[in-house]
Protein backbone atom coordinates (compact mmCIF):
# COMPACT_ATOMS: atom_id res chain seq x y z
CA UNK A 1 0.00 0.00 0.00
CA UNK A 2 2.91 2.34 0.75
CA UNK A 3 4.08 2.27 -2.82
CA UNK A 4 0.56 2.88 -4.13
CA UNK A 5 -0.07 5.85 -1.87
CA UNK A 6 3.35 7.30 -2.57
CA UNK A 7 2.73 6.90 -6.27
CA UNK A 8 -0.47 8.95 -6.12
CA UNK A 9 1.04 11.75 -4.09
CA UNK A 10 4.22 11.86 -6.14
CA UNK A 11 2.00 12.09 -9.20
CA UNK A 12 1.16 15.61 -8.13
CA UNK A 13 4.23 16.99 -6.44
CA UNK A 14 5.24 19.30 -9.23
CA UNK A 15 3.02 21.26 -11.57
CA UNK A 16 4.92 20.76 -14.81
CA UNK A 17 4.57 17.09 -15.19
CA UNK A 18 2.67 14.59 -17.23
CA UNK A 19 -0.08 14.22 -14.63
CA UNK A 20 -0.88 17.91 -14.78
CA UNK A 21 -0.88 17.80 -18.56
CA UNK A 22 -3.32 14.89 -18.50
CA UNK A 23 -5.54 16.61 -15.94
CA UNK A 24 -5.76 19.69 -18.11
CA UNK A 25 -6.70 17.83 -21.30
CA UNK A 26 -10.13 18.97 -22.29
CA UNK A 27 -13.16 17.32 -23.81
CA UNK A 28 -14.04 18.14 -27.38
CA UNK A 29 -16.14 21.20 -28.16
CA UNK A 30 -19.72 20.63 -29.13
CA UNK A 31 -20.30 20.96 -32.84
CA UNK A 32 -21.01 24.46 -34.07
CA UNK A 33 -24.43 25.43 -35.32
CA UNK A 34 -23.03 27.01 -38.48
CA UNK A 35 -24.22 30.40 -37.30
CA UNK A 36 -22.43 33.55 -38.40
CA UNK A 37 -23.13 35.76 -35.41
CA UNK A 38 -20.04 36.41 -33.30
CA UNK A 39 -20.91 37.00 -29.65
CA UNK A 40 -18.36 39.08 -27.77
CA UNK A 41 -19.39 38.81 -24.13
CA UNK A 42 -17.63 41.01 -21.60
CA UNK A 43 -18.19 39.87 -18.01
CA UNK A 44 -17.69 42.48 -15.31
CA UNK A 45 -17.65 40.19 -12.33
CA UNK A 46 -15.58 42.54 -10.16
CA UNK A 47 -17.63 45.68 -10.87
CA UNK A 48 -14.75 47.56 -12.51
CA UNK A 49 -16.37 48.38 -15.84
CA UNK A 50 -17.28 51.85 -14.62
CA UNK A 51 -13.59 52.59 -13.95
CA UNK A 52 -12.75 51.85 -17.58
CA UNK A 53 -15.77 53.18 -19.44
CA UNK A 54 -17.84 56.23 -18.64
CA UNK A 55 -20.27 55.27 -21.40
CA UNK A 56 -20.70 51.55 -21.83
CA UNK A 57 -23.17 52.15 -24.65
CA UNK A 58 -20.58 54.15 -26.56
CA UNK A 59 -17.96 51.42 -26.10
CA UNK A 60 -20.41 48.80 -27.30
CA UNK A 61 -21.32 50.86 -30.34
CA UNK A 62 -17.68 51.62 -31.17
CA UNK A 63 -16.67 47.97 -30.96
CA UNK A 64 -19.63 46.70 -32.97
CA UNK A 65 -19.03 49.36 -35.62
CA UNK A 66 -15.33 48.44 -35.74
CA UNK A 67 -15.83 44.70 -36.11
CA UNK A 68 -18.85 44.89 -38.40
CA UNK A 69 -16.86 47.29 -40.57
CA UNK A 70 -13.85 45.00 -41.01
CA UNK A 71 -15.13 43.72 -44.33
CA UNK A 72 -14.98 47.27 -45.72
CA UNK A 73 -11.26 47.67 -45.02
CA UNK A 74 -9.54 49.13 -48.11
CA UNK A 75 -7.32 46.70 -50.02
CA UNK A 76 -8.90 43.67 -48.40
CA UNK A 77 -9.11 40.94 -51.09
CA UNK A 78 -12.72 40.71 -52.34
CA UNK A 79 -13.13 37.06 -51.34
CA UNK A 80 -12.12 37.80 -47.76
CA UNK A 81 -14.24 40.93 -47.69
CA UNK A 82 -17.25 38.89 -48.81
CA UNK A 83 -16.51 36.26 -46.21
CA UNK A 84 -16.22 38.78 -43.38
CA UNK A 85 -19.42 40.43 -44.53
CA UNK A 86 -21.34 37.25 -43.75
CA UNK A 87 -20.49 37.62 -40.06
CA UNK A 88 -22.28 39.89 -37.61
CA UNK A 89 -20.57 40.96 -34.39
CA UNK A 90 -22.61 41.55 -31.25
CA UNK A 91 -20.96 43.00 -28.14
CA UNK A 92 -22.60 42.58 -24.76
CA UNK A 93 -21.51 43.82 -21.35
CA UNK A 94 -22.71 41.64 -18.51
CA UNK A 95 -22.39 42.98 -14.99
CA UNK A 96 -21.88 39.66 -13.23
CA UNK A 97 -19.82 36.51 -13.46
CA UNK A 98 -20.62 33.85 -16.04
CA UNK A 99 -22.62 30.88 -14.74
CA UNK A 100 -21.44 27.30 -14.99
CA UNK A 101 -24.18 26.60 -17.53
CA UNK A 102 -22.98 29.52 -19.66
CA UNK A 103 -19.36 28.39 -19.50
CA UNK A 104 -20.30 24.80 -20.38
CA UNK A 105 -22.38 26.15 -23.23
CA UNK A 106 -19.88 28.56 -24.79
CA UNK A 107 -19.64 27.54 -28.40
CA UNK A 108 -17.67 28.26 -31.53
CA UNK A 109 -18.95 31.80 -31.91
CA UNK A 110 -18.67 32.92 -28.29
CA UNK A 111 -15.76 35.16 -27.26
CA UNK A 112 -15.88 35.65 -23.49
CA UNK A 113 -13.78 38.42 -21.93
CA UNK A 114 -13.43 39.02 -18.19
CA UNK A 115 -12.72 42.37 -16.54
CA UNK A 116 -10.50 41.95 -13.51
CA UNK A 117 -8.60 43.86 -10.89
CA UNK A 118 -5.46 42.87 -9.03
CA UNK A 119 -6.24 45.23 -6.14
CA UNK A 120 -8.21 44.96 -2.96
CA UNK A 121 -10.11 42.11 -1.38
CA UNK A 122 -11.20 40.67 -4.72
CA UNK A 123 -7.75 40.78 -6.28
CA UNK A 124 -7.30 38.47 -9.25
CA UNK A 125 -4.61 35.96 -8.29
CA UNK A 126 -2.69 33.41 -10.32
CA UNK A 127 -4.80 30.68 -8.67
CA UNK A 128 -7.96 32.43 -9.79
CA UNK A 129 -6.48 32.87 -13.24
CA UNK A 130 -5.78 29.17 -13.53
CA UNK A 131 -9.24 28.35 -12.21
CA UNK A 132 -10.79 30.64 -14.82
CA UNK A 133 -8.87 28.89 -17.59
CA UNK A 134 -9.90 25.47 -16.28
CA UNK A 135 -13.52 26.59 -15.97
CA UNK A 136 -13.38 27.53 -19.64
CA UNK A 137 -11.68 24.24 -20.52
CA UNK A 138 -8.71 26.03 -22.04
CA UNK A 139 -6.16 23.43 -23.22
CA UNK A 140 -2.54 23.41 -22.12
CA UNK A 141 -1.24 24.61 -25.46
CA UNK A 142 -2.58 26.60 -28.34
CA UNK A 143 -1.02 28.80 -31.00
CA UNK A 144 -1.14 32.27 -32.44
CA UNK A 145 -0.40 33.27 -36.02
CA UNK A 146 2.00 35.84 -37.41
CA UNK A 147 1.20 37.02 -40.92
CA UNK A 148 4.24 36.78 -43.16
CA UNK A 149 2.59 38.53 -46.09
CA UNK A 150 -0.75 40.05 -47.04
CA UNK A 151 -1.97 37.00 -48.84
CA UNK A 152 -2.78 34.89 -45.84
CA UNK A 153 0.53 33.12 -45.30
CA UNK A 154 1.24 32.79 -41.59
CA UNK A 155 3.62 31.11 -39.26
CA UNK A 156 2.57 29.59 -35.95
CA UNK A 157 3.87 30.56 -32.58
CA UNK A 158 2.98 28.20 -29.71
CA UNK A 159 1.25 29.66 -26.67
CA UNK A 160 0.97 28.04 -23.27
CA UNK A 161 -2.08 29.70 -21.69
CA UNK A 162 -1.51 28.60 -18.11
CA UNK A 163 2.08 29.83 -18.08
CA UNK A 164 1.00 33.00 -19.87
CA UNK A 165 -1.69 33.85 -17.33
CA UNK A 166 0.69 33.25 -14.42
CA UNK A 167 3.19 35.65 -15.99
CA UNK A 168 0.67 38.30 -17.01
CA UNK A 169 -1.25 38.79 -13.77
CA UNK A 170 1.46 40.51 -11.69
CA UNK A 171 2.85 42.49 -14.65
CA UNK A 172 1.48 46.03 -14.43
CA UNK A 173 2.32 46.94 -18.04
CA UNK A 174 0.43 43.94 -19.38
CA UNK A 175 -3.16 45.18 -19.46
CA UNK A 176 -4.75 42.14 -20.99
CA UNK A 177 -4.39 38.59 -22.19
CA UNK A 178 -6.19 36.98 -25.10
CA UNK A 179 -6.17 33.23 -25.60
CA UNK A 180 -7.26 31.82 -28.96
CA UNK A 181 -8.84 28.49 -29.71
CA UNK A 182 -6.63 25.85 -31.30
CA UNK A 183 -7.51 26.99 -34.80
CA UNK A 184 -4.22 26.02 -36.38
CA UNK A 185 -4.22 22.43 -35.15
CA UNK A 186 -5.41 19.93 -37.77
CA UNK A 187 -8.59 18.14 -36.63
CA UNK A 188 -8.64 20.33 -33.53
CA UNK A 189 -11.35 19.50 -31.05
CA UNK A 190 -10.90 22.63 -28.94
CA UNK A 191 -11.49 25.48 -31.39
CA UNK A 192 -14.26 26.87 -29.22
CA UNK A 193 -12.04 27.33 -26.15
CA UNK A 194 -10.99 30.98 -26.10
CA UNK A 195 -10.82 33.58 -23.42
CA UNK A 196 -9.84 37.19 -22.80
CA UNK A 197 -8.87 38.88 -19.53
CA UNK A 198 -8.34 42.61 -18.95
CA UNK A 199 -6.86 43.98 -15.72
CA UNK A 200 -8.70 47.26 -15.46
CA UNK A 201 -6.64 48.64 -12.57
CA UNK A 202 -3.43 48.31 -14.58
CA UNK A 203 -5.15 49.67 -17.68
CA UNK A 204 -6.21 52.92 -15.97
CA UNK A 205 -3.23 53.37 -13.64
CA UNK A 206 -2.07 56.97 -13.74
CA UNK A 207 -4.85 57.99 -16.14
CA UNK A 208 -7.26 60.46 -14.62
CA UNK A 209 -9.16 61.43 -17.77
CA UNK A 210 -12.31 59.35 -18.18
CA UNK A 211 -12.13 59.94 -21.94
CA UNK A 212 -8.58 58.61 -22.16
CA UNK A 213 -9.46 55.64 -19.95
CA UNK A 214 -12.30 54.70 -22.27
CA UNK A 215 -10.11 55.06 -25.34
CA UNK A 216 -7.54 52.73 -23.75
CA UNK A 217 -10.25 50.26 -22.88
CA UNK A 218 -11.56 50.11 -26.44
CA UNK A 219 -8.08 49.74 -27.93
CA UNK A 220 -7.09 47.01 -25.48
CA UNK A 221 -10.32 45.12 -26.16
CA UNK A 222 -9.58 45.22 -29.90
CA UNK A 223 -6.03 44.00 -29.18
CA UNK A 224 -7.06 41.12 -26.90
CA UNK A 225 -9.86 40.10 -29.24
CA UNK A 226 -7.21 40.09 -31.94
CA UNK A 227 -5.33 37.47 -29.91
CA UNK A 228 -8.57 35.54 -29.40
CA UNK A 229 -8.97 35.45 -33.17
CA UNK A 230 -5.50 33.96 -33.34
CA UNK A 231 -3.20 36.92 -33.89
CA UNK A 232 0.28 37.03 -32.39
CA UNK A 233 2.07 40.19 -31.29
CA UNK A 234 3.37 42.03 -34.35
CA UNK A 235 5.51 45.14 -33.97
CA UNK A 236 4.23 48.48 -35.24
CA UNK A 237 0.62 47.33 -35.52
CA UNK A 238 -2.45 47.26 -33.29
CA UNK A 239 -1.01 43.94 -32.11
CA UNK A 240 2.29 45.43 -30.90
CA UNK A 241 3.36 44.25 -27.49
CA UNK A 242 3.55 47.82 -26.14
CA UNK A 243 0.43 49.82 -25.52
CA UNK A 244 2.06 53.09 -26.60
CA UNK A 245 2.49 51.62 -30.09
CA UNK A 246 -0.87 49.79 -30.11
CA UNK A 247 -2.78 53.00 -29.62
CA UNK A 248 -1.27 54.52 -32.78
CA UNK A 249 -2.94 51.93 -35.02
CA UNK A 250 -6.71 52.14 -35.35
CA UNK A 251 -7.20 48.92 -37.26
CA UNK A 252 -5.83 45.50 -38.04
CA UNK A 253 -3.47 45.03 -40.97
CA UNK A 254 -4.62 43.14 -44.06
CA UNK A 255 -2.60 40.11 -42.94
CA UNK A 256 -4.28 40.24 -39.54
CA UNK A 257 -7.71 40.56 -41.13
CA UNK A 258 -7.03 37.43 -43.14
CA UNK A 259 -6.41 35.67 -39.84
CA UNK A 260 -9.80 36.88 -38.53
CA UNK A 261 -11.48 35.72 -41.72
CA UNK A 262 -9.81 32.32 -41.62
CA UNK A 263 -10.61 31.82 -37.96
CA UNK A 264 -14.25 32.74 -38.38
CA UNK A 265 -14.57 30.36 -41.33
CA UNK A 266 -13.05 27.57 -39.25
CA UNK A 267 -15.40 28.30 -36.35
CA UNK A 268 -18.46 28.55 -38.59
CA UNK A 269 -17.72 25.10 -40.00
CA UNK A 270 -17.88 23.79 -36.46
Amino acid sequence: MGSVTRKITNFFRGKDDLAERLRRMQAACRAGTGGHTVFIKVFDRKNVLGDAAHSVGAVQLELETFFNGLSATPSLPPFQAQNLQTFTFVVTFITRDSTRAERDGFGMMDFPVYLETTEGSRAFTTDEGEALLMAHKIPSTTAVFIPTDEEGTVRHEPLEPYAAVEKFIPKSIAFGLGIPGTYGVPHSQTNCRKLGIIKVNHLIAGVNSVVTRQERFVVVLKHELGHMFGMAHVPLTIMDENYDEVVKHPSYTIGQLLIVSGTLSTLAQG
Partner: protein
Amino acid sequence: MTVRKTESRVPANFQASDLGEASVAADGRCALISFVTSPLVVGRENVYVVFVTDAGLAAAAESFEWTLTENGGPPETQTTPQGEFSYQPKADGVLELVVRILGAGGAEQASLSLEQEMVSPNVELETLIGEARNQPGPGVSNPDVARELINDHNPYYQAVALHTPEAGDGFQRFVFGVVFDGALQRTAAARKRHLDELAASLNGQSADFVNLVGKGAGVCGIRLALLAMILPGLLDFTELPEPFDKRALADEQLRQALAALGEEQLIDLYNLVRFPKSNIERCAAILEALRDRYFPGTNFNDVLTGMSGTRAHWLIRHFKEGPLIRT
Protein backbone atom coordinates in the same frame (compact mmCIF):
# COMPACT_ATOMS: atom_id res chain seq x y z
CA MET B 1 -38.19 -9.46 -12.63
CA THR B 2 -37.90 -6.99 -15.52
CA VAL B 3 -37.30 -3.91 -13.43
CA ARG B 4 -34.67 -4.92 -10.94
CA LYS B 5 -34.47 -3.47 -7.45
CA THR B 6 -31.24 -1.73 -8.44
CA GLU B 7 -33.13 0.25 -11.11
CA SER B 8 -36.24 0.93 -9.05
CA ARG B 9 -35.07 4.09 -7.26
CA VAL B 10 -32.75 7.04 -7.72
CA PRO B 11 -30.67 7.56 -4.55
CA ALA B 12 -32.42 9.58 -1.87
CA ASN B 13 -31.47 13.27 -1.92
CA PHE B 14 -29.98 12.90 -5.41
CA GLN B 15 -31.42 13.42 -8.88
CA ALA B 16 -30.97 11.37 -12.01
CA SER B 17 -28.69 14.10 -13.41
CA ASP B 18 -26.35 13.60 -10.45
CA LEU B 19 -25.60 10.12 -11.72
CA GLY B 20 -24.90 10.96 -15.36
CA GLU B 21 -26.42 12.61 -18.41
CA ALA B 22 -30.11 12.07 -17.82
CA SER B 23 -33.43 12.24 -19.59
CA VAL B 24 -36.36 12.10 -17.19
CA ALA B 25 -39.91 11.35 -18.28
CA ALA B 26 -42.27 14.30 -17.96
CA ASP B 27 -44.44 12.30 -15.58
CA GLY B 28 -41.40 11.32 -13.52
CA ARG B 29 -42.10 7.60 -13.76
CA CYS B 30 -38.80 6.68 -15.34
CA ALA B 31 -35.40 8.10 -16.26
CA LEU B 32 -32.67 7.25 -18.75
CA ILE B 33 -29.11 7.82 -17.57
CA SER B 34 -25.94 7.70 -19.67
CA PHE B 35 -22.62 6.89 -17.97
CA VAL B 36 -20.80 9.29 -20.31
CA THR B 37 -21.91 12.89 -20.79
CA SER B 38 -21.99 14.14 -24.36
CA PRO B 39 -19.86 14.20 -26.38
CA LEU B 40 -19.37 10.44 -26.56
CA VAL B 41 -16.18 9.16 -28.12
CA VAL B 42 -16.18 6.95 -31.19
CA GLY B 43 -15.13 3.39 -30.44
CA ARG B 44 -15.57 3.73 -26.68
CA GLU B 45 -18.28 1.80 -24.88
CA ASN B 46 -20.98 3.74 -23.08
CA VAL B 47 -23.58 2.29 -20.73
CA TYR B 48 -27.19 3.41 -20.48
CA VAL B 49 -29.47 2.56 -17.57
CA VAL B 50 -33.23 3.00 -17.31
CA PHE B 51 -34.64 3.59 -13.86
CA VAL B 52 -38.33 2.83 -13.42
CA THR B 53 -39.39 4.51 -10.22
CA ASP B 54 -43.16 4.07 -10.59
CA ALA B 55 -44.43 0.80 -9.16
CA GLY B 56 -47.25 0.50 -11.68
CA LEU B 57 -44.97 1.03 -14.65
CA ALA B 58 -42.44 -1.39 -13.16
CA ALA B 59 -45.15 -4.04 -12.82
CA ALA B 60 -46.21 -3.58 -16.43
CA ALA B 61 -42.70 -3.59 -17.91
CA GLU B 62 -41.64 -6.79 -19.66
CA SER B 63 -38.73 -5.65 -21.83
CA PHE B 64 -36.73 -2.66 -23.01
CA GLU B 65 -36.35 -1.80 -26.70
CA TRP B 66 -33.31 0.34 -27.54
CA THR B 67 -33.15 2.14 -30.90
CA LEU B 68 -30.00 3.98 -31.87
CA THR B 69 -29.59 6.14 -34.94
CA GLU B 70 -26.26 7.63 -35.93
CA ASN B 71 -26.34 10.75 -38.09
CA GLY B 72 -29.85 10.05 -39.34
CA GLY B 73 -28.83 6.70 -40.80
CA PRO B 74 -30.57 3.34 -40.50
CA PRO B 75 -31.66 2.72 -36.90
CA GLU B 76 -30.23 -0.15 -34.92
CA THR B 77 -32.68 -1.81 -32.53
CA GLN B 78 -32.09 -4.28 -29.73
CA THR B 79 -34.27 -5.56 -26.94
CA THR B 80 -33.04 -6.37 -23.44
CA PRO B 81 -34.79 -8.03 -20.52
CA GLN B 82 -33.43 -5.46 -18.07
CA GLY B 83 -32.92 -1.72 -18.30
CA GLU B 84 -29.20 -1.64 -19.03
CA PHE B 85 -27.55 -1.41 -22.44
CA SER B 86 -24.06 -0.80 -23.80
CA TYR B 87 -23.21 0.92 -27.06
CA GLN B 88 -20.08 2.00 -28.93
CA PRO B 89 -20.49 4.97 -31.27
CA LYS B 90 -19.15 4.35 -34.75
CA ALA B 91 -18.73 7.78 -36.31
CA ASP B 92 -18.51 11.49 -35.50
CA GLY B 93 -21.84 13.28 -35.47
CA VAL B 94 -25.11 12.92 -33.63
CA LEU B 95 -26.50 9.85 -31.89
CA GLU B 96 -30.20 9.61 -31.19
CA LEU B 97 -31.28 7.04 -28.63
CA VAL B 98 -34.87 6.05 -27.97
CA VAL B 99 -35.69 3.45 -25.34
CA ARG B 100 -39.21 2.10 -25.08
CA ILE B 101 -40.43 0.22 -22.06
CA LEU B 102 -42.63 -2.53 -23.45
CA GLY B 103 -45.36 -4.39 -21.69
CA ALA B 104 -47.38 -7.48 -22.58
CA GLY B 105 -47.63 -8.07 -26.32
CA GLY B 106 -44.98 -5.46 -27.00
CA ALA B 107 -47.26 -2.58 -26.04
CA GLU B 108 -45.34 0.59 -25.29
CA GLN B 109 -45.68 1.62 -21.66
CA ALA B 110 -43.25 4.55 -21.71
CA SER B 111 -40.56 6.04 -23.91
CA LEU B 112 -37.40 8.01 -23.20
CA SER B 113 -34.98 9.66 -25.61
CA LEU B 114 -31.55 11.22 -25.52
CA GLU B 115 -29.53 12.99 -28.21
CA GLN B 116 -25.76 13.03 -27.82
CA GLU B 117 -22.83 14.14 -29.91
CA MET B 118 -20.12 11.73 -30.99
CA VAL B 119 -16.52 12.83 -31.52
CA SER B 120 -13.20 11.20 -32.33
CA PRO B 121 -10.84 10.22 -29.50
CA ASN B 122 -9.01 13.10 -27.86
CA VAL B 123 -6.50 14.33 -30.40
CA GLU B 124 -4.16 15.88 -27.86
CA LEU B 125 -3.95 12.64 -25.88
CA GLU B 126 -3.43 10.45 -28.92
CA THR B 127 -0.65 12.77 -30.05
CA LEU B 128 0.96 12.51 -26.62
CA ILE B 129 0.71 8.71 -26.64
CA GLY B 130 2.12 8.56 -30.15
CA GLU B 131 5.03 10.84 -29.25
CA ALA B 132 5.80 8.81 -26.13
CA ARG B 133 6.04 5.63 -28.18
CA ASN B 134 8.60 7.20 -30.46
CA GLN B 135 10.75 8.94 -27.89
CA PRO B 136 12.81 7.77 -24.94
CA GLY B 137 12.00 8.92 -21.43
CA PRO B 138 8.83 8.96 -19.33
CA GLY B 139 5.54 8.74 -21.15
CA VAL B 140 1.94 7.85 -20.53
CA SER B 141 2.41 4.73 -18.40
CA ASN B 142 -0.96 3.23 -19.20
CA PRO B 143 -2.52 4.67 -22.35
CA ASP B 144 -5.80 2.80 -21.85
CA VAL B 145 -6.32 4.35 -18.45
CA ALA B 146 -5.46 7.79 -19.78
CA ARG B 147 -7.91 7.23 -22.65
CA GLU B 148 -10.67 6.21 -20.24
CA LEU B 149 -10.20 9.21 -18.00
CA ILE B 150 -9.81 11.86 -20.65
CA ASN B 151 -12.41 10.57 -23.10
CA ASP B 152 -15.06 9.35 -20.63
CA HIS B 153 -14.66 11.02 -17.23
CA ASN B 154 -13.11 14.39 -18.07
CA PRO B 155 -16.12 16.60 -17.21
CA TYR B 156 -16.58 14.79 -13.89
CA TYR B 157 -13.16 15.16 -12.30
CA GLN B 158 -12.81 18.65 -13.69
CA ALA B 159 -16.05 19.70 -12.00
CA VAL B 160 -15.15 18.66 -8.43
CA ALA B 161 -15.15 21.52 -5.97
CA LEU B 162 -14.69 21.91 -2.25
CA HIS B 163 -17.67 22.95 -0.15
CA THR B 164 -15.50 25.73 1.23
CA PRO B 165 -13.36 27.07 -1.63
CA GLU B 166 -9.67 27.48 -0.97
CA ALA B 167 -6.70 28.86 -2.86
CA GLY B 168 -4.86 26.58 -5.23
CA ASP B 169 -5.83 23.52 -7.20
CA GLY B 170 -4.46 20.91 -4.82
CA PHE B 171 -7.89 19.38 -4.27
CA GLN B 172 -8.56 18.95 -7.96
CA ARG B 173 -5.09 17.44 -8.47
CA PHE B 174 -5.58 15.09 -5.55
CA VAL B 175 -8.96 13.87 -6.79
CA PHE B 176 -7.58 13.35 -10.29
CA GLY B 177 -4.75 11.30 -8.83
CA VAL B 178 -7.19 9.09 -6.93
CA VAL B 179 -9.41 8.65 -10.00
CA PHE B 180 -6.38 7.79 -12.13
CA ASP B 181 -5.15 5.32 -9.56
CA GLY B 182 -8.57 3.70 -9.25
CA ALA B 183 -8.74 3.17 -13.00
CA LEU B 184 -5.16 1.87 -12.99
CA GLN B 185 -5.73 -0.70 -10.23
CA ARG B 186 -8.46 -2.57 -12.10
CA THR B 187 -9.53 -2.60 -15.72
CA ALA B 188 -12.93 -1.17 -16.67
CA ALA B 189 -14.08 -4.73 -17.38
CA ALA B 190 -13.03 -5.95 -13.93
CA ARG B 191 -14.76 -3.01 -12.27
CA LYS B 192 -17.93 -3.71 -14.27
CA ARG B 193 -17.84 -7.37 -13.24
CA HIS B 194 -17.59 -6.39 -9.59
CA LEU B 195 -20.46 -3.93 -9.92
CA ASP B 196 -22.57 -6.59 -11.67
CA GLU B 197 -21.85 -8.99 -8.83
CA LEU B 198 -22.89 -6.37 -6.30
CA ALA B 199 -26.08 -5.77 -8.26
CA ALA B 200 -26.80 -9.49 -8.35
CA SER B 201 -26.44 -9.72 -4.58
CA LEU B 202 -28.73 -6.72 -4.06
CA ASN B 203 -31.26 -8.12 -6.50
CA GLY B 204 -31.40 -11.27 -4.46
CA GLN B 205 -29.48 -13.46 -6.84
CA SER B 206 -26.58 -14.18 -4.53
CA ALA B 207 -25.78 -13.85 -0.86
CA ASP B 208 -22.19 -12.68 -1.13
CA PHE B 209 -22.73 -9.03 -0.28
CA VAL B 210 -20.47 -8.86 2.78
CA ASN B 211 -17.51 -10.25 0.85
CA LEU B 212 -18.19 -8.20 -2.25
CA VAL B 213 -18.16 -4.89 -0.37
CA GLY B 214 -14.68 -5.68 0.92
CA LYS B 215 -13.44 -4.34 -2.41
CA GLY B 216 -13.74 -0.75 -3.56
CA ALA B 217 -16.35 -0.19 -6.23
CA GLY B 218 -16.44 1.77 -9.46
CA VAL B 219 -13.81 3.94 -11.06
CA CYS B 220 -12.41 5.41 -7.82
CA GLY B 221 -12.63 2.15 -5.89
CA ILE B 222 -14.94 3.52 -3.20
CA ARG B 223 -15.62 1.19 -0.31
CA LEU B 224 -19.35 1.25 0.40
CA ALA B 225 -18.85 1.23 4.16
CA LEU B 226 -16.76 4.40 3.98
CA LEU B 227 -19.33 6.04 1.70
CA ALA B 228 -22.04 5.10 4.22
CA MET B 229 -20.09 6.83 6.96
CA ILE B 230 -19.88 10.08 5.00
CA LEU B 231 -23.53 10.21 3.93
CA PRO B 232 -25.75 11.35 6.79
CA GLY B 233 -27.79 8.88 8.79
CA LEU B 234 -26.31 5.60 7.57
CA LEU B 235 -23.27 4.34 9.47
CA ASP B 236 -21.48 5.88 12.42
CA PHE B 237 -17.95 6.97 11.65
CA THR B 238 -15.92 3.92 12.65
CA GLU B 239 -12.13 3.78 12.63
CA LEU B 240 -10.34 0.53 12.08
CA PRO B 241 -7.16 -0.66 13.79
CA GLU B 242 -4.10 -0.02 11.70
CA PRO B 243 -2.36 -3.40 12.21
CA PHE B 244 -3.58 -5.65 9.45
CA ASP B 245 -4.41 -8.68 11.62
CA LYS B 246 -6.66 -6.62 13.92
CA ARG B 247 -8.08 -4.61 11.03
CA ALA B 248 -9.33 -7.65 9.10
CA LEU B 249 -11.78 -8.61 11.88
CA ALA B 250 -12.91 -5.04 12.49
CA ASP B 251 -13.39 -4.55 8.76
CA GLU B 252 -15.60 -7.62 8.56
CA GLN B 253 -17.69 -6.35 11.47
CA LEU B 254 -18.02 -3.02 9.66
CA ARG B 255 -19.17 -4.76 6.51
CA GLN B 256 -21.70 -6.74 8.51
CA ALA B 257 -23.03 -3.45 9.91
CA LEU B 258 -23.25 -2.13 6.36
CA ALA B 259 -25.13 -5.21 5.20
CA ALA B 260 -27.62 -4.68 8.03
CA LEU B 261 -28.72 -1.35 6.59
CA GLY B 262 -32.08 -1.22 4.84
CA GLU B 263 -32.38 -2.57 1.31
CA GLU B 264 -33.16 0.87 -0.15
CA GLN B 265 -30.10 2.39 1.51
CA LEU B 266 -27.86 -0.34 0.09
CA ILE B 267 -29.32 0.13 -3.37
CA ASP B 268 -28.68 3.87 -3.11
CA LEU B 269 -25.06 3.29 -2.10
CA TYR B 270 -24.62 0.89 -5.01
CA ASN B 271 -26.02 3.35 -7.54
CA LEU B 272 -23.84 6.18 -6.27
CA VAL B 273 -20.71 4.14 -6.98
CA ARG B 274 -22.05 2.51 -10.14
CA PHE B 275 -22.11 5.64 -12.26
CA PRO B 276 -18.73 7.32 -12.96
CA LYS B 277 -20.15 10.82 -12.45
CA SER B 278 -21.48 10.17 -8.95
CA ASN B 279 -18.57 7.89 -8.12
CA ILE B 280 -16.07 10.66 -8.79
CA GLU B 281 -18.21 13.28 -7.05
CA ARG B 282 -18.61 11.06 -3.99
CA CYS B 283 -14.89 10.28 -4.02
CA ALA B 284 -14.20 14.00 -3.86
CA ALA B 285 -16.69 14.40 -1.03
CA ILE B 286 -15.07 11.57 0.92
CA LEU B 287 -11.58 13.00 0.47
CA GLU B 288 -12.77 16.41 1.65
CA ALA B 289 -14.49 14.85 4.68
CA LEU B 290 -11.36 12.89 5.57
CA ARG B 291 -9.20 16.01 5.24
CA ASP B 292 -11.62 17.98 7.44
CA ARG B 293 -11.54 15.27 10.06
CA TYR B 294 -7.85 14.43 10.17
CA PHE B 295 -6.17 17.63 8.96
CA PRO B 296 -8.70 20.39 9.63
CA GLY B 297 -7.78 23.76 8.20
CA THR B 298 -5.02 22.34 6.00
CA ASN B 299 -5.20 23.53 2.42
CA PHE B 300 -5.04 20.68 -0.08
CA ASN B 301 -1.92 22.19 -1.64
CA ASP B 302 -0.28 21.70 1.76
CA VAL B 303 -1.78 18.22 2.06
CA LEU B 304 -0.05 17.29 -1.19
CA THR B 305 3.30 18.94 -0.67
CA GLY B 306 3.72 19.69 3.03
CA MET B 307 5.49 17.34 5.41
CA SER B 308 6.90 15.42 2.42
CA GLY B 309 3.37 14.39 1.44
CA THR B 310 2.74 12.49 4.68
CA ARG B 311 -0.76 13.92 5.04
CA ALA B 312 -1.67 12.93 1.50
CA HIS B 313 -0.29 9.46 2.17
CA TRP B 314 -2.53 9.13 5.24
CA LEU B 315 -5.60 10.46 3.46
CA ILE B 316 -5.17 7.82 0.80
CA ARG B 317 -4.74 5.11 3.42
CA HIS B 318 -7.92 6.26 5.19
CA PHE B 319 -9.69 6.19 1.81
CA LYS B 320 -8.45 2.78 0.73
CA GLU B 321 -8.18 0.90 4.02
CA GLY B 322 -9.86 2.86 6.77
CA PRO B 323 -10.60 5.14 8.21
CA LEU B 324 -7.75 4.05 10.45
CA ILE B 325 -7.03 4.67 14.11
CA ARG B 326 -3.84 6.75 14.18
CA THR B 327 -1.59 5.75 17.03
